[in-house]
């Protein structure tokens, strides 16, 4: 998989209340959730971002609640994938289970500024920064998890079996 997009930066410990506040959880409609994506971290995020853009987080991205509404909101907003230094474990599971691509890179977040365009080549495990010769490695994904993404998420994976 190859993703190219503009980067929106967020800090450490971006929690699921920041990604999609609980006050909007009275629905699971992806379109309604997407309208409030990242609202409590950056109220204008949805207005500013474009389809195909990439979220770049720090440590422990997605901590807090188990709400799958968080990766749903991100995916439905048009964000193509999330790169972070590390992910909270339920968010990590949810992303793979529902087919939202996520990548771990310890270095990227500190090395580039918001607004940079990056290309992620998940097969080669490399992130390149447009207009520079900077390259960053992404942590390899276990084969089982790769299979989940390839199958389109956990339920499709089970159906296939």
């Amino acid at each position, binding site marked *: 998989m190859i993703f190219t997009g503009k980067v929106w930066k967020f800090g450490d*410990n971006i*929690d699921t*209340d*920041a990604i999609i*506040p*609980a*006050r909007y*959880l*009275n*629905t*699971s409609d992806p379109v309604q959730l997407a309208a409030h994506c990242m609202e*409590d*971290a950056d*109220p204008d995020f949805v207005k500013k971002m474009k389809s195909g853009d990439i979220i770049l987080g720090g*440590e*422990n991205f997605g*901590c*807090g*609640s*188990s*709400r*799958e*509404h968080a*990766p*749903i909101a991100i995916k439905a907003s048009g964000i193509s994938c999330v790169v972070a230094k*590390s992910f*909270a*474990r*339920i968010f990590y*599971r*949810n992303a793979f*289970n*529902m087919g939202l691509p996520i990548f771990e890179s310890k270095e990227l977040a500190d090395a580039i500024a918001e607004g940079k365009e990056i290309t992620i080549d998940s097969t080669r495990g490399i992130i390149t920064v447009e207009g520079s010769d900077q390259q960053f490695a992404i942590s390899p994904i*276990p084969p*089982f998890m790769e299979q989940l993404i390839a199958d389109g*998420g*956990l*339920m*499709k994976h*089970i*159906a296939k079996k």
Partner: protein
Amino acid sequence: MGNTITEKILMAHAGLSEISAGQLINARVDIALGNDITAPIAIREFRAAGGQKVFDRDKVALVLDHFTPNKDISSAQQCKTVREFAAEHGITHFYEGGQVGVEHALLPEQGIVLPGDLVIGADSHTCTYGALGAFATGVGSTDLAAAMLTGELWFKVPSSIKFVVYGKMPKWVSGKDLILNIIGRIGVDGALYQAMEFTGETILNLPMADRLSMANMAIEAGAKNGIFAPDAITEEYVKPRARRPYKFYASDADAVYSQVIEIDAGKLEPQVAFPHLPSNVKGISQAGNVKIDQSLIGSCTNGRIEDLRIAAGILKNRKASSGVRLIVVPATPFIYRQALQEGLLEIFLNADAVISPPSCGACLGGHLGILAEGERSIATTNRNFVGRMGHPKSEVYLASPAVAAASAVLGRIASPEEL
């Protein structure tokens, strides 16, 4: 090489004779839990995958506790979806209306989760049941859908951090203070992907209510699960409630841990987590003068009868300070009734408290206690993220029921010692 209690429970449920940290396994699930927020997505996924029947109607628990009593039309729709699914599949453990309690208080109380179980729940605080010596972990809605369909789920075996707690906890110090202190030490990702195993002489004497509060907040350190080896205290709690067999597991003496952390509980004072992270913890003596608008006593962390007794002990013959909304939320109908019979509700009413029905409402900023811009609440809950209890510019301070009650009386964050 020996195994930890977490590894042993996973090993038994995966049908393996060996296991090690980092391994990906497929394991059998004893109880799969969902609520009115997470179950609707799981049901959608379950149906989309062509699911006709849940794997075992006795092993699925559906609890409508978050936006109930229904706060608006959308939440009513969500509850309806779950109710219809529960009826269609004859789900044994379906709770709503006057039977519903906050799920993580309800399931142990009703004997639905037991020692040695492997429990998954589409709610992050599912880790609470580790207090009983179960492996219990929060997952997403798709995981719940998969478990409801197949009775199994994939897991990565976590390594374990061992906490050895010693010393006698001083007056007004509880399991809540201990876990807040631990999260303050190791941070909100201090146990990321790992199990937190609580041991030591202090833990051996720790009542079940305190163990439940501690295991409940393991997720706040990023942990996959928190766990206590079951013992006589567990047996006493579980025996009258269990309607099926259960099993006690214990870590081997030569089990491998990623870290061992020792804590002297004798030196602790009541703890307060300042906004906006559960790890932003200070001792009460360092809290300074923080005025509050609301005090919330309840939730799956501290809404049990033991918590209400402590709060009532402090609030007896006292009133909430003018300008402070005191909200008390008994976590289950059983607890509500106990509080009524013991005269605690009378004490709360006399203290000018609002008594809420059992609900998650205020804890997640859903309803029944939302904060306005600039307002502050002390709360016995488990999360104080930005916007957790209402406006993004409101603040939540986490503490024990004793501190929340004393603070309500004094109108600022305070120790019960000050009364």
